[in-house]
């Protein structure tokens, strides 16, 4: 059971309070009618599924209810960073290097 920091509540809580929302920074096209089928499948289903450091969404569903993002190493499950929704994706390579991943 992971230990997750909610950047809104500013506490670490057990994973059971949270719902994972999958890979982060996959924006819904702002004008879907102008997207191709390829673009749409990328938005809907294609995921980088990275083995290593990646950014994902979490929602503090049994807490403040907010979505936020986290950078996690999918090999060790260690979190490297938590940040609020809307903030830009951090430099994953830099975070990985810093954490020695």
């Amino acid at each position: 059971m992971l230990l997750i920091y909610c950047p809104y509540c500013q506490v670490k809580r057990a994973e059971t309070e949270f719902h994972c929302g999958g890979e982060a920074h996959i924006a819904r096209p702002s004008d879907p009618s102008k997207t191709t089928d390829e673009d749409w499948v990328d938005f809907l289903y294609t995921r980088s599924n990275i083995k290593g450091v990646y950014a994902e969404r979490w929602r503090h569903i049994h807490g403040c209810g907010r979505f936020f993002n986290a950078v996690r190493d999918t090999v060790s499950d260690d979190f490297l960073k938590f940040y609020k929704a809307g903030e830009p994706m951090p430099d994953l390579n830099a975070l990985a290097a810093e954490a020695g991943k």
Partner: protein
Amino acid sequence: MSQPFRTEKGGRIDRAEQLTFTFDGEELHGHKGDTLASALLANGIHLVGRSFKYHRPRGIVTAGSEEPNALVGIYRNGDQTPNLRATQVELYQDLQAISQNRFPSLGFDVGAVNDLLSPLFPAGFYYKTFMWPKSFWDRVYEPIIRSAAGLGRPPKNPDHDYYGNQYAHCDVLVVGSGPAGLAATLAAAETGARVILCDEQAEFGGSLLSVASASIDGKDPSIWVSETIQKLSAMANVTLLPRTTAFGYFAHNFIALAERVTEHLKDPDPKLPRERLWQVRAREVVIAAGAIERPMAFPENDRPGVMLAEAGRTYLNRYGVKVGHKVLVATACDTAWQAAFDLADHGVEVVAIADIRETPPDNLISIAKARGIRVEAGCVVTGTLGRKRVKAALLGRLMTSGQVASGGQVECDALLMSAGWTPTVSLYSQSRGKVVWDAEKGAYVPGKPVQKERSTGASKGLYGLQATLEDGYAAGEEAARAATGKTATFTRATASGGEAGNGGTLGALPHDRDASRVKAFVDYQNDVTAKDVKLAVREGMHSIEHIKRYTTTGMATDQGRLSNMNALQIASGSLERPMPEVGLTTFRQPYTPTTFGLFAGVARGDFFDPVRKTPSHDWVVGNGGVFEDVSQWKRAWYFPKTGEDMHAAVARECKTVRESVGLFDASTLGKIEVVGPDAAEFLERMYTNPWKKLAPGRCRYGLLLNDAGFITDDGVIGRLAEDRFHVTTTTGGAPSVFATMEDYLQTEWPDLDVWITSTTEQYAVAAVQGPKAREVIAPFIEGVDLSAEALPHMSVKEATFCGVPCRLFRISFTGELGFEINVPRRHGRMLWETLAAEIEKHGGTPYGTESMHVLRAEKGYIIVGQDTDGTVTPHDAGMSWAIGKKKFDFVGKRGLERPDLIAENRKQFVGLLTKDPKVKLEEGAQITTAETPATGTPAEGHVTSSYYSPALDRTIALAVVKNGHALEGQTLYVPMPDGSIPVEVTGTVFYDKEGARLNV
């Protein structure tokens, strides 16, 4: 009352309290403080079980949780728990134990024939045979194998014990309470840090409880233990957990502990949990799990009476039990000598110390000589004699050539052995740490920490009492500092005696016997011999994981803690690769076998999953209603009157609704209040339908898709004000609809000024449906004009019901005139009972979900999740009308445009009428064009809903059929095992096609 192997004095048992127990029905005696194993040994009983594969007689080998042989069943409350380690079972009055894996008795076991046939049963033999004739595998061979395998018998009766759960946080968790663990606990506790100390044994102290020849601060170590424990128990920041095994080390410093609360008690209070799961988040962890002694892999090393030297010492010093009268000590290291000395000091005849080393330390030799013990250096055990108990051992002399020369035979009734020590790295390994090979110690030791932990003392290969204490203090201090930044000064104890020993060996020992005839066991429980490991390598199993799986070594209930190192060495020799290159298999949780009930915890019966009940629940129970489970809810399914079955009750309920009036509890439907200036814009984007022009006071049916374009939910949405909507969802879909809305709102459209609030539980909802619905509610409603003109179909108004504020919807899921009254939940029961009494006056009836399904099917309304299954688009469902054509976007709009969602041949929602109006189709039945389709014919679709319709006095069905909308009037077939049923494709509305009944 004789316990012939009990010492005169000494040990930590309570000699004043004698306990009676039975083993295989035989009445025996022991003392408080005994384990079942020590009590059996005190009675001279070594033979306690039969091995897994060859059914060989087996005795107690260890004094700890790693015991491979002494697995017994314990009877309690008329049922038995299998596979308990006798070394861990604390004795209580009238304890009943039975041996396992033998038939008819432990002494005479027919399964022992396997031992004679063992040449036919090498590792992996079953992969090479039992293939002919083919049908014999699961009919003949497998049942035989299954009944021969297994250990104890499973419990027969439901377990009525209760299991507890405790979540805990601490600064420092210390696992193990030997010298290192106690020192670490003290050091951490002195800083004020919150410390939890757990130990799998009943008493704290670990190895300190079995030493006879050392002191701490000038005192007997066990006295230092009690003083330390006394001190720790007085500290508010310390939690002491005896009988508690740290069995799992998970991500983010989460450690699971199993506390055995009542198992050691004769008559535990039923209010106490049998066991308690501790789920601990520790800032820092100190692993002080110690080390375990390694058996020597010599031929016939499994004879009852052959046991580990340290176990012999523990039984003597801790339990006051002599493991034999004539004991041979076979060793490769110094520590076992101390066992010989202690036994000699208690008057046991130590027939010899056979040390495989050419030159054991002089000081040990002189102590032995002083006690008159024969010392054989460069000497190895090459076999044992005796069947159910060792009688004698064969000795061999190691020659410089590497050969072994016979060294004669010595008589003994117990053989203590030690091949050296193996640090317990299980928890470290579970923490995802990588063990490293320490060639000097001949052991795998913890490598770099991966999580916030450190190993201390013997669990990292550090031995010697003083060194261990110092290391423990340092580990505790470091852990506390890392967790809290705090330090403290305190007095440290110093030890004398208990020096670290040297020596040790790995793998199969050399002997002068016929290698093909003798068995030197590596894994006792699974009957894996040195030969098996070599065979696996010979057959190409070169990965240690392959060797493990092929031979099953290390897969027994001790998870290889006793066997791994010897097996690895043998593999290493066969593979001609050094140990570290062979690698070590992964240690998995649990550290020792852990009760299922502990994991299940409180989740049983009604606490298995919350039972959600509506305010009408008790009334429904009182009126004979039957419930169905819909997600976590209990929903009234139907209301049978005396003598009615479900069919009759439903037929009556439906008819009554159509003819007069019915009352339905709609409280379970999800409700979401959407509020804010952008509320309409938000719904516009979420739902397929247009919302901006919906006037306050009016309702509209809303259809929700996912972005792939498939229907996921639906419900009626009422506009209460410009900026306020009351959204309803399906019962099961409520949580996911809410979560989906939050997702889009927060992450895609954070600029919208709108917020959503779940009000599912704020309101109790009663639906009154039927031609008399208006008359029924009229007496209780104030503040609203109920006339068709003022309150037309699909309206919503705020009003009061019996003076209670309510939201009154005029909507219908039956096709009849209908109202849904939402009152604050606390008034729900009043609402229901008032209406129930009122409808009775009008000849009405309460109705349940089944009738609701029938009534809506007569009208062709879909049920999401029954008529749709996540692959249905609005077009398929015949609901293109629900799509706002002019909308810029909504969830699912783009998905719907994908090629296969607009392709020909999609399955479309239709009605079906059987040619014979009495024949009711089965839901889920398949639909074909051919009357007698060949096997493998693709189905044209399937029946999604099927009922007897009281209104039509015939059966009706809804279905999805390929191109169904174009097939109206055509005949298709529903193939059933006893023949095809012809059906006609129809529209989906069977009753009141014009909707006249709604608009009254």
